[in-house]
């Protein structure tokens, strides 16, 4: 914090802007106070030869070479020249874009699950738009590494769903780091986490004796928050346009909601029931923002056309159900039906998400179940299409499809080499590259160290246990 310009930006800017030589041109009260410090390490070029390539854009390229260079996908084709690059023979193996999970609580509900690290819900008020989930992320969560072993290269970490408006979510690269800023996906917008249904009314109405206690209380809560935000935004926009006079008072919660209204923050809504999703779409229309995706959405199949028509993605589980009443109507074909909606226009946007540190390790298997269920219901779903549920579609919902999510020349080299079809339960991510840097190699498990938390946990176990003796047996 020695450079003066940086200090100006970091010091709550509203009072100091004038003293720092002029107003930030962006119509927000402050520039990003928590910028990404992620820098991919330099990596030598790699030629992956002869793989079955699922591009993420509905195409399957058999026996195809992919060249990774300078952190990007440099070439895709047959019999590419190796030049000076390292060659990996991948015949019989599958190459896909890195998996993107749009719904994770890694780092904020980490392992181990104890009070000290339970940082996902600021459940002290029903709207907490002022909190940023990134300030809860513990980068040493061992779950980041196991997710990487499942091929996950990018994830969105979200606040929990206790609140109507839970705060800002964030998109991160799944790389080992000491600080979360070292994981922040450069150029990705932040998100707003909202929640429908049972959770907010249970946490506040049933357990807290305050509003919201009902579905109608939930909706009143969203509308009240955005009504205030619209007024706040108008004041700030007028101030920014005028270029003079005293700045309006700063409100961190309204900063976030105003930026939602400006389209600078993407809205991610936890919502199970069809009727509640339709209501949320109307609320969004009333205040002029878009909902990027409904998360969990077990009843999305009931309104698949509405979701397609409004360009709203469904971020879904393959088969979770029944843990609460709003999850009672789940069907195994949900993902496939959302995907198939308005298929003549290619509009259905289905995403397989995890919301779970175990599920994130096998999103490929969850997609396999959803694909198989859809096929049995008579839908045509080739592997090269279903892979998009894990790659291109989540990238679209996070606004980063121009950077990652598909295997196309020029995109980030976020790539997974699978031991076989990723739609097999027996398949493993053999190697995982993030921005062209090898971040996981099954043949070299020590390529990346365990999280600091796991280091030394088994110092004695390794020398005294049956495991050690049994492991030594022929």
């Amino acid at each position, binding site marked *: 914090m020695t450079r003066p310009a940086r200090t100006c930006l970091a010091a709550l800017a509203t009072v100091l802007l004038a003293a720092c030589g002029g107003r930030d041109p962006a119509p927000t009260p402050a520039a990003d106070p928590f910028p990404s410090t992620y820098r991919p390490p330099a990596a030598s070029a790699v030629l992956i030869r002869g793989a079955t390539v699922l591009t993420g854009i509905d195409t399957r390229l058999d026996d195809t070479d992919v060249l990774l260079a300078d952190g990007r996908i440099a070439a895709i084709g047959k019999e590419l020249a190796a030049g000076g690059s390292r060659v990996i023979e991948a015949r019989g193996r599958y190459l896909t874009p890195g998996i993107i999970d749009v719904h994770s609580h890694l780092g904020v509900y980490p*392992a*181990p*699950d*104890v009070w000290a690290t339970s940082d996902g819900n600021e459940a002290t008020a029903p709207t907490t738009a002022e909190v940023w989930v990134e300030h809860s992320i513990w980068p040493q969560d*061992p*779950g980041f590494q*196991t997710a990487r072993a499942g091929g996950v290269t990018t994830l969105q970490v979200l606040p929990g769903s206790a609140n109507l408006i839970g705060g800002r979510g964030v998109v991160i690269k799944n790389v080992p780091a000491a600080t979360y800023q070292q994981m922040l996906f450069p150029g990705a917008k932040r998100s707003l986490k909202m929640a429908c249904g*049972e959770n907010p009314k249970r946490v506040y109405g049933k357990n807290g004796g305050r509003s919201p206690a009902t579905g109608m209380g939930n909706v009143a809560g969203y509308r009240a928050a955005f009504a205030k935000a619209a007024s706040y935004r108008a004041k700030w926009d007028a101030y920014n346009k005028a270029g003079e006079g005293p700045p309006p008072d700063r409100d961190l919660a309204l900063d976030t909601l105003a930026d939602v209204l400006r389209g600078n923050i993407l809205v991610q809504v936890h919502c199970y029931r069809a009727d509640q999703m339709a209501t949320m779409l109307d609320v969004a229309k009333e205040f002029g923002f878009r909902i990027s995706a409904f998360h969990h959405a077990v009843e999305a*199949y*009931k*309104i*698949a*056309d*509405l979701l397609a028509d409004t360009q709203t993605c469904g971020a879904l589980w393959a*088969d*979770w*159900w*029944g*843990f*609460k*009443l709003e999850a*009672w*109507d*789940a*069907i*195994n*074909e949900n993902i496939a*039906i959302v995907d198939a909606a308005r298929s003549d226009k290619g509009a259905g946007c289905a995403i397989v998400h995890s919301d779970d*540190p*175990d599920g994130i*390790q*096998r999103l490929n*298997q*969850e997609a*396999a*179940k959803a*694909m*198989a*269920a859809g096929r*049995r*219901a*008579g839908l045509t779903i080739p592997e090269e299409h279903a892979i998009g549920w894990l790659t291109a579609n989540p990238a679209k919902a996070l606004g980063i499809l121009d950077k990652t999510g598909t295997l196309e020349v020029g995109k980030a080299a976020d790539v997974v080499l699978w031991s076989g079809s990723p*739609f*097999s*339960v*027996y*398949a*493993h991510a053999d190697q995982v590259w993030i921005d062209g840097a090898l971040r996981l190699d099954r043949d070299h498990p020590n390529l990346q160290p365990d999280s600091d*938390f*796991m280091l030394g*946990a*088994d110092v004695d*176990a390794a020398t005294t*246990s*049956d*495991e050690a*003796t*049994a*492991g030594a*047996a022929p």
Partner: protein
Amino acid sequence: MIPRPIQIVALTTALLAGNARAELFAIRNAEVHTVAGAGTLKAATVLVRDGRIEAVGAEVAIPDGARQIDAAGRPLTPGIFVARSALGLKEIDGVEETNDVASAQKRYSAALDVSDALNPRSVLLPVNRIAGVTRAVTAPDSTKGGSLIAGQGAIISLAGARAADGRWIVKPQAAMFAALGEQGRELAGSRPAALAALREAFEEARSGGARMGSGLSGEAQLSPLDIAALQRVLKREMPLVLNAERASDIKAALKLADDYGLQLIISGGAEAHLVASELARRSVPVLLDPSRNLPAHFETLHVDRDAVAVLSRAGVRFAFIDASEFGSHNARNLRQLAGIAAGHGMDRDAALAAITLSPAQIFGLSSELGSIEVGKLADLVLWDGDPLEATSAATAVWIDGESMPMVSRQTLLRDRYLKRPLPR
């Protein structure tokens, strides 16, 4: 299917009566995964008479009058046997009125018997049954403020209300369930307090009526029914299933079992591989989730996907359970967990055994269930692909030789929205 007489005549008075409906059918041209000495038989026939397997093999003569089902070479396995669930005991976790898993707010609920309250019309049964689950252990458990000894679990048939003679609870009082480790600590105050409380209960039960009601009082009071139930555990008429994850907690459980001569089953067992030889020496089996690899709790710090291999080498018997909160609604995904274990190097037949034969052995039902062998009950599942693959599904399911309709509330919802689209 030919309609059969509705009148049912029981052929045996045994609890596991099997299906007494007179029917003879043959599933032929199947890849039969016997989960028995015969291994996997290609192009084989399984002959079923009156709910039991009468013949298995490539050269089975199909009697006149036997209905024939052509499996077209597809895999046929024993029904999946879920070693731990709350099937029939809870419907919706978040709807308290439907959830009877957790026991009362007293220290000991040994008298609690889930078979008093199980619901054979649970929506969860068809959802899992059409995915190949045919039997399940259904167990009480404890939440904060509940009982250290949660009560007695039962073994059910997923046929539920369809079971012949209504006999879907195939083994009531199948095991006593109790907690050690972090759960026991939370219930009793500390780990040693949980151990002491279990010892007090067994001491009280051992001394029987002489001291009945005199030794313990208040929330720790044991009722005569509690004592009677614990005496059955002391007499090894019922195994004790103890939740224990950390190696030291498992060792404490072994010591308790030694001291009171209990038949012990470890549930959880995240660190069982660290005490594998001690488990093997006492023939104590383990119910564990093979997919776990994160230290979700401090007591599971050493959880390891290689544990299954270590336990196998040591000769410990184990069955797979789903340790997440989805072990009931998605008991059907036990198959996926077995597939994950196979993907990590476990023999595929052994992985299948861990969700079929092993649970039957651990809960004392392997003479009747768990494998495709002559004389056993015909719990059979025909699959459209590799039974451990996530993309495979059951295409036909028999329980006690009775063909199950491949319908659940979920398939009905699917059909309503797929085949008769409403305005959306």
